[in-house]
């Protein structure tokens, strides 16, 4: 701690000591345009190389800049265009520059610290930047859906097809067992909450039993709230080599989001209106009975009376084979999105970006929907030339109704009901408005009645706000020192109210019919930071030194009230016969201090970075101890040869951590006996020395720019080692304790990421841009100080397949009973003692590839994104429901599978590889004259677009969707498919106009 502080001070002193100033200057003016045309480039930055002097072009593309006497060089840059350096000889005072479009995104600014960025041409890490435009090419309900297929090395899984979210991003494999497993999301410098709050669906599905919410509630990650249209760009820091600046939150990678800011120049108004629809993308099919006799055989009835009754029942049915999936999930909802934004600069110098969104997406079931409204105001103001203020605020409201899906133990899930109901039985609403009762075996459940009666709204109000003040303490030509103060808040309230009224058939089997679950979560995240950034520009090098402090605070309070025994029509939980309450609270405080040096030299070819971040947090066993997270990286740009314009070699090392979230204390758990409170020691033995997990990553790579900028290729190899894994060691229950948190164990992830982007055809009228990504990674448990164990994640037992952590095995391995040493005498079943428990395979894919293609012919543009996931195993438990009841579509297959299952073979494991056409867009830019006419001369540009998401899936998987997971919200074990909400494909028609 002390050494860090003193070295920072030393650096600053050095920097100050070498200040100097220039005396003579001259003025240079000019104009920046798009290369090959006279279209002006607004807000392009014009810098004098070797100094800190620079300016921006105005709305005519003109600039005026002071340069030192003598020959000078100007560097002109603008996002979306390839930068250019232009020499300005001694006498010249006028220069015009044309910039070419940066179709392959050769240049972006890469974030390297809380206040520092570096050009991507020099960046020493594998950079993935997704621009706002690429993100929103096809409308998506939430950000995570929009990121699918766009980040090489990211596995994005969707928990169910229900509207409104429930998607997890996993970067570079599985990096933890018990700690946080999702990447950190940062918006405009504020750490944003990405929790999943359970809405209490468990109280009516009894997936985990009891009266309280569970991990099987089909939870939604709260990053779903963010409006994707506000995003300027997303930068993904894929591993600790880049994310060590985020300390003990950076192990799983960081997704850094920058929202749009105001621009100098003309004020623009952008309006988009989208209309669309969705439909079910896949069905598994029901068994059709050909005759009454076939049905009677299925029931197994033996008496003549019963058989006759069965045949009569069959004969009385009007439809002999209902397509239940189509009937229940056959909605074609009307979806719409209205997006408007205004951007520009007021005469007073305040630049602004204001945007609003109103979104409505229906689901496949009646009454399921996702609604979102958001309003964002981003303001920036420069005061007195030295002080730069920025304030970004977003207010979001979202209301989701996702219906009932996922695992259940009551019969309430539609697929559970369908798996037990012969398909000639009509469950739909009758002409008189009533619903037929379901079968006794599923507690009389009628899923059609549930869509009308059971309500599952989840209402979220959220405020995201950040502010930043940057003051230029020193603003000389060859030296700058900035001090910046930033702070932000992410606060939201998640209010869920599940109402399952007593007149629903499924409720009537309960001792107290009628259930209300009221959930209220209040979450607050606050970030505060202060830092100094010093830039020293010399002929031989540019040195950027930064140092600062930060604080993060997080408060969580989630209260759930479950009421059972409620009179039909009443929605007040206090009126229930039995009320159960639970609460969970948490406060986390962290402090950090960091210092970093970036040294750019050798004509900007070599960039060397070194930094350290020291952090302490209240979650650690010793909250006063600082843990160090260092980073070192270097990149060298080799000058071009043959067809290679430029090659960059890079190597980066960094360490990040993962905070312990519990485990320090042995708590006393309260237990109530006849209304009197008592305490007894909890079954989790405390560990006072618990510390964060540490993840160290070494990443090396090569980036090539080829054929005159027409192609780029990048290859990255990484090795990520996670030590001090937080493990829940199982203790012998005979000690009175069942678990204790320990640090120990090691996972090593290594992988490869390749990316090839090219423009095979590029003419005035036609262009084709193509991108291909490849990523593969494998993680192994290289050290485990405890015996192998099944992680505290969900599964249905080893006869189906569960996650398992064992030394020498992949961290994503699946363990299952899949073999028999000796069958029983009849050869039909495997006695439990003879079952062979083995490691059957990997739940993560062998590799993933993404293919993006964009064809442009004049005003038409066609873009597509295809995702290929090769390999990976999953457990299809939905099949178990249908095969077991004999109502699967393919009865012969079902019988074979069941017989094999009895013999000890795990028939539920399936390959979950797939090829998906994720996005397809066709857009047409209306001719300028036409658009001006339509919009009464106001519109600058107008565009029509037809787009589709999730249009086609090719897979061998026999379930609804190879990507779903009943236990999606957990680190391990995300491969269980249990009666999910079916996947949907969506189509949109959009009209966009800018004024």
């Amino acid at each position, binding site marked *: 701690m002390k050494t860090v502080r003193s070295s920072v001070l030393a650096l600053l002193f050095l920097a100050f000591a070498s200040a100097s100033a220039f005396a003579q200057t001259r003025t240079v003016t000019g104009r920046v345009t798009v290369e090959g045309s006279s279209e002006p480039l607004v807000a392009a930055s014009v810098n004098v190389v070797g100094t800190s002097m620079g300016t921006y072009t105005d709305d005519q593309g003109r600039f005026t800049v002071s340069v030192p006497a003598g020959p000078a060089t100007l560097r002109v840059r603008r996002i979306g265009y390839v930068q250019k350096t232009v020499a300005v000889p001694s006498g010249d005072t006028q220069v015009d520059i044309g910039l070419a479009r940066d179709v392959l995104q050769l240049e972006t600014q890469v974030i390297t610290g809380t206040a520092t960025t570096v050009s991507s041409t020099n960046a020493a890490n594998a950079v993935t930047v997704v621009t706002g435009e690429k993100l929103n090419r096809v409308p998506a309900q939430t950000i995570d859906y929009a990121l699918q297929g766009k980040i090489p090395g990211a596995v994005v899984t969707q928990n169910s097809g229900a509207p409104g979210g429930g998607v997890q991003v996993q970067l570079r494999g599985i990096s933890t067992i018990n700690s946080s497993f999702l990447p950190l999301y940062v918006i405009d410098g504020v750490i944003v909450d990405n929790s999943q709050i359970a809405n209490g669906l468990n109280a009516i599905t009894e997936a985990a039993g009891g009266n309280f919410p569970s991990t099987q509630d089909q939870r939604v990650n709260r990053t779903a709230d963010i409006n994707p249209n506000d995003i300027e760009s997303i930068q993904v820091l894929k591993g600790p080599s880049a994310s060590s600046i985020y300390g003990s939150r950076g192990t799983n990678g960081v997704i850094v989001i920058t929202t749009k800011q105001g621009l100098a120049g003309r004020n623009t108004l952008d309006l988009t209106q989208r209309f669309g629809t969705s439909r079910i993308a896949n069905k598994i099919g029901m068994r059709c009975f050909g005759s009454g006799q076939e049905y009677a055989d299925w029931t197994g009835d033996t008496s003549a009376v019963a058989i006759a009754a069965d045949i009569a029942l069959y004969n009385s049915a009007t439809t002999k084979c209902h397509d239940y999936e189509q009937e229940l999930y056959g909605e074609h909802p009307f979806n719409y999105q209205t997006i408007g934004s205004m951007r520009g600069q007021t005469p007073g110098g305040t630049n602004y970006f204001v945007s609003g969104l109103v979104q409505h997406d229906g689901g496949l079931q009646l009454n399921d929907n996702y609604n979102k409204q958001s309003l964002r105001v981003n303001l920036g103001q420069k005061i007195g030339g030295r002080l730069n203020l920025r304030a970004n605020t977003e207010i979001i409201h979202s209301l989701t109704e996702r219906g009932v899906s996922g695992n259940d133990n009551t019969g309430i899930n539609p697929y559970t009901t369908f798996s037990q109901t012969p398909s000639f039985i009509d469950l739909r609403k009758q002409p008189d408005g009533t619903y037929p009762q379901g079968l006794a075996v599923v507690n009389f459940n009628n899923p059609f009645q549930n869509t009308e009666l059971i309500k599952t709204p989840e209402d979220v109000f959220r405020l995201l706000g950040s502010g930043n003040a940057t003051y230029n303490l020193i603003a000389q030509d060859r030296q700058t020192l900035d001090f910046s103060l930033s702070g932000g808040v992410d606060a939201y309230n998640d209010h869920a109210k599940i109402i399952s009224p007593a007149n629903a058939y499924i409720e009537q089997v309960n001792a107290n019919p009628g259930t209300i679950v009221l959930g209220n979560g209040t979450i607050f995240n606050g970030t505060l930071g202060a830092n100094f950034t010093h830039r020293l520009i010399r002929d031989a090098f540019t040195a950027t030194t930064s140092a600062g402090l930060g604080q993060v605070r997080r408060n969580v309070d989630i209260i759930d009230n479950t009421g059972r025994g409620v009179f039909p029509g009443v929605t007040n939980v206090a009126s229930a016969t039995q*009320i159960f309450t639970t609460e969970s609270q*948490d406060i986390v405080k962290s402090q950090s201090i960091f210092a970093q040096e970036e040294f750019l030299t050798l004509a900007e070819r070599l960039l060397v970075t070194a930094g350290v971040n020291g952090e302490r947090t209240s979650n650690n066993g010793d909250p006063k101890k600082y843990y160090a997270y260092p980073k070192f990286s270097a990149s060298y740009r080799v000058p071009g040869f043959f067809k290679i314009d430029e090659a960059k070699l890079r190597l980066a090392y960094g360490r990040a951590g993962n905070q312990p979230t519990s485990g320090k204390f042995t708590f006393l758990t309260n237990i109530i006996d006849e209304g009197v409170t008592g305490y007894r020691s909890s079954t989790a033995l405390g560990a006072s020395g618990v510390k964060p997990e540490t993840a160290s990553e070494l990443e090396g790579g090569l980036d090539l720019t080829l054929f005159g900028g027409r192609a780029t290729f990048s290859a990255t190899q990484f090795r990520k080692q996670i030590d001090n894994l937080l493990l829940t060691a199982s203790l012998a229950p005979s000690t009175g304790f069942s678990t204790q948190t320990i640090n120990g164990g090691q996972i090593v992830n290594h992988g490869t990421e390749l990316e090839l982007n090219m423009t095979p055809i590029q003419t005035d009228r036609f262009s084709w841009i193509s991108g291909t990504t490849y990523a593969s990674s494998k993680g192994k448990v290289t050290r485990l100080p405890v015996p192998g164990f099944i992680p505290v994640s969900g599964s249905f037992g080893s006869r189906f397949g569960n996650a398992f952590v064992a030394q020498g095995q992949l961290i994503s391995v699946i363990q299952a009973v899949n073999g028999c040493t000796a069958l029983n005498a009849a050869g039909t079943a495997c006695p439990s003692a003879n079952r062979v428990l083995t490691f059957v395979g990997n739940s993560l894919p062998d590799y993933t590839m993404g293919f993006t293609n964009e064809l442009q012919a004049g005003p038409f543009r066609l873009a597509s994104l295809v995702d290929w996931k090769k390999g990976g195993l999953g457990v299809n438990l939905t099949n178990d429901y249908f095969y077991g009841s004999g109502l699967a579509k393919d009865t012969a297959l079902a019988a074979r599978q069941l017989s094999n299952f009895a013999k000890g073979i795990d028939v539920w494991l399936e390959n979950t590889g797939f090829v998906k056409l994720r996005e397809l867009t066709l857009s047409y830019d209306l001719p300028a004259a036409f658009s001006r006419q339509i919009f009464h001369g106001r519109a600058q540009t107008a565009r029509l677009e037809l787009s589709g998401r999730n249009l086609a899936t090719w897979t061998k998987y026999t379930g609804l969707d190879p990507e779903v997971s009943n236990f999606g919200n957990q680190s391990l074990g995300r491969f269980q498919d249990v009666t999910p909400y079916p996947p949907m494909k969506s189509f949109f028609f959009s009209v966009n106009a800018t004024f």
Partner: protein
Amino acid sequence: MKRYKTLLLGAAALVVAGCKDNPVANPIDAPTVDALNGTLSPAALQLLATGVLGQDRNAANVFAYAIEAGIFARDVYRIDASEPRFVQETLGGNPDPGSFAGGGAWANYYTAFRAETNLLKALSNASNQFTPEEISATRGFIQTIKALDYWRVIEYRDTVGMAIQSDDPATVTDIKCKETILAYIAAVLDSANADLAAAGNSTVLPFTLPSGFTAFGRNYSVVSNIIKFNRGLKGKVDFYRGLDRKAYTASMFPTAIAELTQALGGAAPGAVPAADFQKGPYYVFVPGGSENTPNTISDSKIGLNPLVGDSVQAGDTRASKIVPRVTLSGFGLSTSITYSGAVASTANQARPLGILRDEELVLLRAQAYIEAGQLANALLDINSVRTNYGLAPLAPFVDKQSAINALLYEKRYSLLFEGPQRLDDLREYGRLNSTYLRKETSTDPYNAALPLPRAELNARGVTVNPACTP
């Protein structure tokens, strides 16, 4: 400009000052065990004692108490779509150590032992607000509960054995054989008895007991009644030590008879009044509210084995415990009767469960008399129970077997669905097999006990039950 500069520097100072802020965030969800160090106050004793009794009650309110033992004893069925657990691993095959059916009656009780140890340790540092007699009484009572909990575990594990928990949470002790465990339980009960004697008959416990221990005919806050409970449990344990089918010890029976008689207030054979049969300690359940501990046997998926209804003797008023129900069938089993307390209803969710009623003590004494060869005395006790339920008294027994048969009938219907009592008897009398009981499914293995739970095996680094150490 200067204004902004000062503002910024001021704000920066705030941030730096924030760094001095103590990063410790105290756990705010629950107290920790550190709260137990220090002098034990009456309020803390109440909390800890309620914790022990609540844990003990909740551990008996699960599948692996009355229900699973009832299934093993062939009196109870539970039929539900969530198989394998209720039929295939009880009446159709062996319970798997890692499954719902095989892992019960273990962890909950060991948590109870830890709670009891913590309380007894804290008692040695009790404040001077307690009298020495009160401390002895508390010690005696808690040790009796501890012995009861050990009995519960060994009752379900039988010859597999169990571990005696160490005071140190980090130590894993050997699995001891049943005889050693029963001897240990006997020692704990005697040590408790000594403490209770030192406390004096009229001493009252310095904390409030739940109503199950006070409202059912006998107030166990008073030491004289705790002694009765203690002696009753000791008598039961000694009886089964004697009856142990692997190590039959005839000398235990007279001891058991003496202890059971003391527990019954010194009553002569057949002289226990019928009004006393329902007296004893009970568990009281509270459905709903934040406590939410409904009696788990109130369950629409539970029924009684049809043989229970078929075997009732005409005129037996205990037949009122057997009520008709909607036919429950599946997995090869079918029944149309259930236990009156198992019908799913709010009333049954609050139905209390007897721990060791006087009726059970009377029948245990009868069993001890039979084994000790005192068939006439056994007949007196058995008839005192029979006649209370509308049945004619039996004629003197011709031999031990017919006495046992008669006894087993009474015990079955007097204690129907009240716990593992019948399982204990069928097992120790060697009747848990196809000679005495029909096969319920084609693969019926006549399960007599549960294996060690998978978590215990994993922690010991083994995959099958280790041999117990004597």
